[in-house]
Each structure stands twice: as structure tokens, then as C-alpha cells.
């Protein structure tokens, strides 16, 4: 008989939630679902309501920006062990870019609207979540700054 394991261990062992208090994890797991995306599928699209984020378990996700009048431009990739999506935390809760699977992607989707309500009700949980998202946002900002400097200082060959 195969024992079906809940999402709890998958969430608890993802690097994003390392060290998270078990009771907080239990609340978060209540907002989680498994997700699989085939190559080229969108995790989300720019401008649409941002109501989720994803813990990437396996595969590569490409972030793309749609600029109008031309095909979207791939601007960054996110790998297994990282997370995708922070627009659900910031009003007006709309995605600022597209995210597409570059190969099969296995992830855990977390209902942002559900988690926002729980964070409003439990400020300690809210603070924990923000503490984990801020470094992600800071790292993305740093990556973009590095690329601006690279573009400005290194030849295009």
C-alpha cells in the first residue's frame, strides 16, 4: 500500500522555508497545492492578478517581460530551490512580468490571497514571511544592478 504524503514535508524542506516555525508552516501548508508546468507553459502572465507564488522544486523558470509590439524578452531565470513571484505581496497585486517553464517545472503553488489574510490576522506570521521575501527581492535587485553595470562597462564583443 502506497502511503500518500502531504505537502508539509515538501514545504518544510524547501530552502525558502528553512528554519520556519512548525506552527507557522502548518498555517502555510493550508494554502499550498502541488503544481506541474510543461515546457513553455505560463506560471503567470504580466498584468494579471497576482494571487500566488511558487516554490520551485525542480526545473528552470524564465521570467519574461512583454514590452508590446514585439515578442517577450527573457530577463532572468529562476532555479530549483528558489521562489517565483512576489507581486502578490505588493498592491495592486498584479504580476509585473511573465513566468514560463523552461522545461518541465515541478513546484508548490501557494495561494497568496489566502496567505495575505492569514498574515493580516497573525502579524508574527506576516513578519516571518516578509523577512523571507525581502532578501529574495534584494537579491533580484542586486542581480539587476550587476547587469546594468556589466552592460555599461563590458564590451558587447
Amino acid at each position, binding site marked *: 500500500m502506497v502511503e500518500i504524503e502531504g505537502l508539509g514535508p515538501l514545504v518544510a524542506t524547501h530552502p525558502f522555508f528553512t528554519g520556519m516555525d512548525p506552527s507557522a508552516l502548518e498555517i502555510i501548508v493550508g494554502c499550498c497545492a502541488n503544481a506541474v508546468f510543461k515546457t513553455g507553459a505560463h506560471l503567470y502572465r504580466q498584468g494579471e492578478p497576482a494571487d500566488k507564488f511558487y516554490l520551485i522544486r525542480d526545473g528552470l523558470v524564465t521570467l519574461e517581460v512583454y514590452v508590446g509590439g514585439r515578442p517577450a524578452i527573457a530577463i*532572468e531565470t529562476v532555479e530549483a530551490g528558489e521562489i517565483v513571484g512576489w507581486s502578490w505581496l505588493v498592491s495592486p497585486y498584479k504580476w509585473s512580468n511573465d513566468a514560463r517553464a523552461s522545461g518541465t517545472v515541478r513546484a508548490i503553488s501557494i495561494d497568496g490571497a489566502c496567505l495575505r489574510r492569514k498574515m493580516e490576522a497573525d502579524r508574527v506570521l506576516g513578519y516571518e514571511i516578509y523577512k523571507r521575501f525581502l532578501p529574495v527581492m534584494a537579491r533580484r535587485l542586486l542581480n539587476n544592478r550587476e547587469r546594468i553595470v556589466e552592460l555599461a562597462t*563590458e564590451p558587447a564583443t
Partner: protein
Amino acid sequence: MDGFAQHDDLMPLPVDPMIPRLFRIVKVKKEVRGVFTWHLVPVDGGDFSYRPGQFNMLYAFGAGEVAISISGDCRDKDKIVHTIRMAGSVTKIMSQLPVGATVGVRGPFGRPWPIEPLYGADLLFVTGTIGLAPLRPLIYEVLHQRDKFGKVVICYGSRGTEDILFEDELHQWRGRFDTNVHVTVHSAPSGYRGRVGSVAAAVRAASIEGANTQAFVCRSETMTKPAVDALRARGITSDRIWVTLERNMKCGVGLCGHCQFGPTFMCKDGPVYRFDQIEHLFEIREL
């Protein structure tokens, strides 16, 4: 210079380092846009020896002289190889020289990459755009002596998918079972399946164990520090990070001062430095 003699494998200088030796262009290869490679052979038929990481002063008669790293395999005694980016009036004229033309060569100059002292270590190469050219001789040599090293990881970045230097060789190296190659681009067309991001982000994602890793960095001077920061975040200390730097080399032998970097001359004390020995200089804005 005292304090900067980080490795003792200096090559003897040419008999008279100020007199160019004549070389003939036997092959011109267009690489990516604005970059070409020369294969040169000495007109006098003699030998030419160098170590990975060294550079030559190339002289286009009537135009001028520029410092260019050697980008070929130092075990190839039939020719020397230079990969040149069109960046100014001299290199523009060089790009127009045909096969059969003669140029002047002074060199080889500078301290090379260390190799033998690093036997047994894992190696990580970090570079972007044209920076792969000065690292390629070292990569060749490491692959010649592959059994002497642990992991070999190459992190390379370019602006887009159309300007990846030595793309065929990156594919070859990636195809080896004993070499990991991470290529990242700044941006790409929708549907691109590779990594997109900065070179430093590729370093952060590379599969390495910092404690036994020696890193080789060839970036612009500005981007060297962010690359080093990314390496240190992976546990590679400054005394195991080797960088190559380039400034306005002119004489090649530490006399003219054009390439001065603090108390060092890049042409003589560099271009390869162990990072901990010049780290403090990166904090001085005026340098």
C-alpha cells in the same frame, strides 16, 4: 615587484623586449560581431613560447601597437593565436588586414596563470564576453592535464544569444563528462531555454565546494569586484581567487607607467594577480 611575486613561473623576457618580431597572418577568423581571431607564424621560422595568461604587444605598421592576450593553446607550436575586439583606431585597422599581411609582435609579457601549484584543486572559471579569450589558454592547458584537477566549472556570460564568444568550444566543453559549463545571457528571445541573468548569478548557482576551489576571473576591472564577492559568498577566499586585469599597457616591461595600478604595473606584476594581494587597491576610488 616585492610583495607581488605571487608565483614564480615567470617566463624570461624576449632578448630585446622593445624590438618587434615579424609575424605573418596565416588565418583570420570572424568570431562574433566586432571580434576576430588571428593565427600568426613567425616570419623568421623560429620558436615562440608562452604561458597561459600572457599577452603580446601587436603592432600594425603605420597604425600603432596594442596589448592583446594570447588566446590559443600554448602547446600548439605551429602558431600563436590572438582574439581581438575592435575597440579603437588601431584594432579597426587590424581588422582589415588580410591573410599574408605582416605585423610586429613584442612579447610574451606578464605573469601567467598559475597551474602546477594548483594541482588537486577544483577549478572555477568566471568570465564574460571577450574575457573568455585570455582564459582560453588556461582552459586548454587544464583540459590537457585534466587528471591533475578535481571539478572544472566554467561560468560565462554574454549580452545575448548572438554574441557568445567561442560558442562551438563552449558546447564541446559542456559535452565532456568531466567539465561543467554554465552560460548565462543578459536577455534572450522568448522561449530561450538557457539561463538568463548576470555572471555573478551563475556563480551563485554553480555546483562548487568553496573549500577546495581555486577561481580564475577575467572581467572588466569594474566587474571584477562583484565577481569576487559572488565567489567569496560561495566560500572561496581571496587567496584562492586569481584575476587578470588590463589597463593601457604600452611598453610591456614596467617602464612607462601607463598601466600602473597602485604600486604595481599590470604589464609586469600582472596581468594575473592573486586577489588578496591587490584587494586593498580596489577600495581606492582614485586608482
